[in-house]
């Protein structure tokens, strides 16, 4: 079975190492990035089913990182996991394309559930796009 691939983006190393271990116990494959810049580098070389992103990070904050990531790949499924969960920030994050907004400390089972939902959405979007491309080809060829 192919494992769900997750990128965990947070500058709190002690937090990411433990959370990654717990996610791996639940069958996920986890990579870690300590900053928004590092996350952007990571997604260049690998396809992720979901990205779990902190809001308050050095240099490039979560919203900025979110914008850059989605500009790079609009299909990315980004879940914001943050300690600064205000309604305004949540609305802003969703407006910029985040699929979910969770508050720290988060329940691991809820987080894993949201990641699996994000993965399902990514698959759905991919299938939709393939379907659309096929329809386009069929229409052009007049089949």
């Amino acid at each position, binding site marked *: 079975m192919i494992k769900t691939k997750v990128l965990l983006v947070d500058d709190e190393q*002690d937090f990411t190492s*433990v959370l990654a*271990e*717990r996610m791996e*116990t639940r069958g996920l494959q986890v990579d870690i990035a300590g900053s928004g810049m590092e996350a952007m580098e990571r997604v260049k070389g690998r396809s992720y089913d979901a990205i779990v992103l902190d809001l308050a*990070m050095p*240099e490039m904050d979560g919203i900025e990182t979110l914008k850059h990531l989605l500009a790079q790949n609009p299909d990315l499924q980004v879940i914001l996991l943050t300690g600064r969960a205000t309604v305004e920030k949540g609305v802003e994050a969703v407006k910029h394309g985040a699929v979910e907004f969770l508050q*720290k*400390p988060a329940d*691991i089972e809820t987080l894993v559930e949201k990641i699996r939902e994000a993965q399902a959405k990514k698959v759905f979007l991919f299938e939709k796009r393939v379907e659309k491309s096929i329809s386009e080809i069929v229409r052009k060829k007049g089949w």
Partner: protein
Amino acid sequence: MNIDKEGDRERLLRENGLAFFGAITASVSHELNNIISIIDQTGGLLDDLLAGARHGRPVENERLQRIAESIACQVKRGEGVIGHLNTFAHSVDHQVQEFEINQLVGNITELTRRFASLKRVHLETQPFDTPVTLQNNSFLVQQAVFLCIKQLLASAEREDTITVSVEDDRSGVRLLIKAEPSRLKTDDLDLHYLELLTGYIGGTIELRDGSGAVVFELMVPHWRDPDNP
């Protein structure tokens, strides 16, 4: 900004004081939330390991030892943050009170550290070699130091250094808040509020730019009349 009238000055002082208090407590609450999240996940990891042990996967003692150490480390980190916040909170107890300036500078610098970390800027202190006790408004002194650091941080870049040093002589205590290298556009600065603030503590503020560094020089008198603060 018109701050000529006494009433306007008082209002400005109150509003900015609250904003300062809010900025510090918001930052500290974020830090504490991070600590709680780490402890929460570490406790969860322990649960996972115990659940595994019930299904025949033994847990190594060394692993448990590392988890215990990690929790103890976060608890210590949390105690430090709470200690700094507590000292800060008590600085509003009296308009004028006795305090040791090296400790005060150390405390407000620690509370400001997260702002610097978010820009990957080094924040350092250089205390005076002996303790210096002042009688003044400690809250306003901290606010002045914080605002100087904040102004320098606004133009600082990754790996820059901001140093807060304490010097003492007969005329008072001199706090030097220095950013290296110098990136601050001094023409864009509005020093009106800092001047008002330092006026209330009986001090002065100056900004120097040159020799590769930009420096706020904040003079604070040793003594302020408690009956006429």
